[in-house]
């Protein structure tokens, strides 16, 4: 058994005060100057070191307030109130919700799993991954306690082709070379988000994080080649049209091509330039993609990257989510009997740790994260950078070490959450979670079965 993979996290302060869901409004006018003011009684000491951040015009009490409402409810002149912060509510969009963004900030800052009391406060279900639940075992399936460390849960996955069977010569020697496999200790890789105030320092930070985590970062080929060879072990050059042959690079373990009209020309150039690398092919996750995958496999691309939209839908059908797309492709490949020769990697709209586990349950082997590693750097998803405007949290000013540590914290928190759900499911290996839909429950199955018949208002009855 390999030694246990642990991501060590430690708090990394934010550079800007986060936007909070609600703010404190404390009026001074009319104050009775009570001998014992409710502000002094704050359990969290919020008012004790109150200060204003001049640059951002943020009152420190907004960020420290824990919403117990005691001051609101006890001030004799009712001078203190809480109010929803409109700046918070407009962050992101319907997929990258304000709550999702705030939780990513928290995890990147603390490296901890979000924990809270008083039950689950959210909606019953929702689109995409929100319409599935993971299973747990009650009595008959013993589980493992991954985080507290008493038992070992492996999150390692392999990228590449596993041969269907081994062929031996008469002398008992292996008749063919085992195709190369890349092992990564977490089923999470990274790539550049489509937008973001990202510069060389930011990318350098992410490269450092990928090395530290021993995973892979997908980068445009021309950026990869700027890094020293030993670093390139953790980089996946993404090769587009126009790429020219270069002196063979044997450190690179995986390259990525794009499924376009020139793919067959590019594959040759890639093979020459990266002779020891596994070739991954990036497909848009759309209808019929499963028909093209065998072609790519035959051409020598055992890793298939299914790319969804950043809002978690598939590329051509807004009502289909990547959850549905991955399931469909996985199932089609199983039916063709080639699933084990292929590594499926999914990306697009993955915004929470649970999306990693759920992608794998739906049939992916691993995922590629993009925007979460940007939001780790305090990105507010305001998309000003897309319009060429300045970044409100100056990501382009961030030091690469800070970038790396924030990214490591986020991945550490996600890794621990993956262990939590795998432990509850009684699954000891991420590899064995793949396609295990038996360890999941789907809204569409349960809802129709149990509520689909509650449809009739009988004569003489009314609803309440």
């Amino acid at each position, binding site marked *: 058994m390999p030694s246990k993979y642990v991501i060590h996290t430690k708090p990394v302060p934010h550079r800007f005060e986060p936007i909070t869901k609600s703010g404190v409004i404390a009026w001074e006018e009319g104050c009775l100057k009570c001998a014992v003011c409710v502000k002094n009684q704050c359990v969290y000491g919020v008012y004790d070191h109150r200060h204003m951040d001049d640059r951002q015009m943020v009152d420190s009490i907004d960020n420290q307030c824990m919403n117990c409402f005691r001051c609101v409810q006890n001030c004799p002149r009712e001078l203190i109130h809480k109010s929803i912060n409109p700046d918070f509510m407009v962050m992101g969009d319907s997929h990258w919700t304000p709550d999702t963004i705030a939780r990513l900030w928290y995890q990147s800052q603390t490296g901890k*799993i979000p924990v809270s009391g008083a039950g689950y406060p959210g909606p019953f279900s929702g689109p995409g991954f929100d319409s599935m639940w993971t299973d747990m075992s009650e009595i008959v399936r013993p589980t493992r306690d991954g985080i507290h460390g008493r038992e070992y849960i492996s999150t390692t996955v392999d990228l590449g082709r596993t041969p269907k069977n081994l062929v031996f010569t008469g002398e008992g020697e292996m008749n063919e070379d085992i195709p190369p496999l890349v092992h990564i200790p977490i089923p999470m890789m990274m790539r550049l988000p489509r937008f973001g105030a990202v510069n060389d320092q930011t990318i350098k930070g992410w490269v450092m994080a990928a090395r530290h985590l021993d995973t892979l970062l997908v980068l445009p080929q021309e950026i990869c080649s700027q890094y020293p060879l030993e670093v390139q072990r953790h980089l996946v050059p993404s090769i587009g049209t126009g790429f020219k042959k270069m002196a063979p690079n044997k450190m690179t373990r995986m390259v990525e091509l794009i499924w376009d009209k020139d793919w067959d020309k590019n594959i040759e150039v890639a093979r020459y330039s990266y002779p020891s690398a596994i070739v991954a092919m990036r497909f848009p996750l759309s209808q019929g993609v499963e028909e093209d995958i065998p072609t790519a496999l035959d051409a020598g691309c055992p890793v298939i990257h299914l790319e969804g939209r950043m809002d978690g839908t598939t590329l051509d059908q807004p009502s289909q989510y990547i959850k549905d797309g991955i399931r469909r492709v996985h199932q089609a490949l199983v039916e063709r009997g080639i699933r084990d020769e292929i590594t499926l990697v999914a990306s697009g709209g993955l915004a929470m740790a649970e999306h990693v586990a759920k992608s794998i349950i739906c049939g992916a082997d691993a995922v590629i994260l993009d925007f979460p590693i940007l939001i780790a750097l305090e990105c507010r998803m305001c998309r000003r950078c897309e319009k060429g405007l300045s970044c409100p949290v100056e990501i382009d000013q961030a030091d690469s070490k800070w970038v790396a540590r924030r990214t490591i914290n986020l991945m550490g928190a996600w890794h621990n959450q993956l262990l939590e759900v795998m432990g509850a499911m009684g699954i000891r290996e991420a590899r064995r979670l793949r396609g295990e839909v038996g360890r999941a429950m789907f809204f569409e199955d349960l809802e129709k079965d149990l509520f689909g018949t509650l449809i009739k208002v009988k004569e003489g009855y009314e609803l309440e």
Partner: protein
Amino acid sequence: MSLSNEPFQLPEIVRTPSRFRNPIGKYRLHRTTACTACGRCVEICPYGVHIMKRGKVYIKNQYLCVGENCPRPCHEACPENALSLKRNPDFDALGDFRWPADLLVSTWYMAEFGTTPSLGLEYKVGSSGGGFDKLRILMKKKTPGFDDISDDDVDVGVVLNRRNDNAHRVRIEVPFYGGGMSYGSVSIATILSRIKAAAALGTFCCTGEGGYPDELKPYDDHVITQVATGLFGVREETIKRVKIVEFKYAQGAKPGLGGHLLGDKVTPGVARMREAVVGFPLFSPFPFHSVYSVEDHKKHVDWIKAINPQALVSVKVSTPTDVDMVAVGSYYAGAHIIHLDGSYGGTGAAPEIAKKNIAMPIEYAVPKVHRFLTEEGVRDKITVIASGGIRTPHDVVKIIALGADGVCTGTADLVALECIRCHNCESGRGCARGIATTDPDLMQLMEIEWGTQRIINLFIAWRKELIRILKRLGIKSLKELVGQTDCLVHLDYLKDRSTV
């Protein structure tokens, strides 16, 4: 309790206002200096919002203002136009999808007055967009013969022992009892308020894992003691003291995950209760490391029955996809009660990923289990209790119609004690409002008599509402409602929307 032949006497409602100076309501009234203290507003307000004191008019009970729903609005009647009405921003900063501000404030209202709020507050459903919040109860437009029957003629009690074995013939007078909250997770005042209210209401309250404090002794007949995976505080003596023993296999808030009490929290008191060492962290593992089959489980049940032959055994489980098999297994192992705990409840801290994702919603688990137990022919031999997200009397009716016999409450009790659902139960010194804390100063914020009466008031309001609904359904006994899914419609699948 049904052990004596004396008829059960419902406790009195005593108005029990908020512990805080400024209770939160939906609206705010503002009075300008143009006010001449003519007293018109005091006169017309049906809710006692305004008072006259020494020739001056004050807004005294702002939280009772029903705003736009008011039949006689003061701000329109004021001859000086000195009054204006707006929504209270504090109200809008409260709550979540499960417990929106309306549900919180209406629960506070019920805990104060012992009756459902009259106008302007949604007290029946939350806004989670599914499950309970999309199910509606089908009421009869006319219920001849039910209009003038007394509330006492409608039976909302539940018999918990259906095995007809040697165990106690326990009946609860209301279809709910208090779910487990351990000593340590909530204050002793909270525990005692819940247990005293349970005793007054003719029902039970569970200790949770972590021991059976001596203060509970006078209420032994209303206590359920818990045997959980850590076996903390479990002794022969405590098992013998009670009428119901609950095995906790899992809890809805963190299904599949163990508990972890930090070393700092293992104070001398907690350590004594749990028979552990001061300052060392305690794990309550998942699952029972001695139970990997129904046969192993039966061994546990038999062990309890050997120590206390008359005890009812309840088995508390979470809701995995095979929850129906687990329920049948529990029946064959000898359990009297199968307690299904869904994931919207819980007081202690739990990873959000667990609360949101692991195990199925209680609204799915109950009909699945009911169906499976019925097909197995044992449904009438075991009591099904549902918990984890039962917020209103309407939730109670819906889950019983889906197949439960009764429910456990937890969060609703705490909301009656003015929990505001800030979700910080375990951060720092614990609950800032003095409910879920063992901090000596914070515990002072709440008194047992106050807490007891608030919970009694809330549940009397629930009971009244249950009886009202049963009458409208044309049912005299709650047990007739069990599994009657034709009393329900789901708004998403409703055929003829014009009837809504």
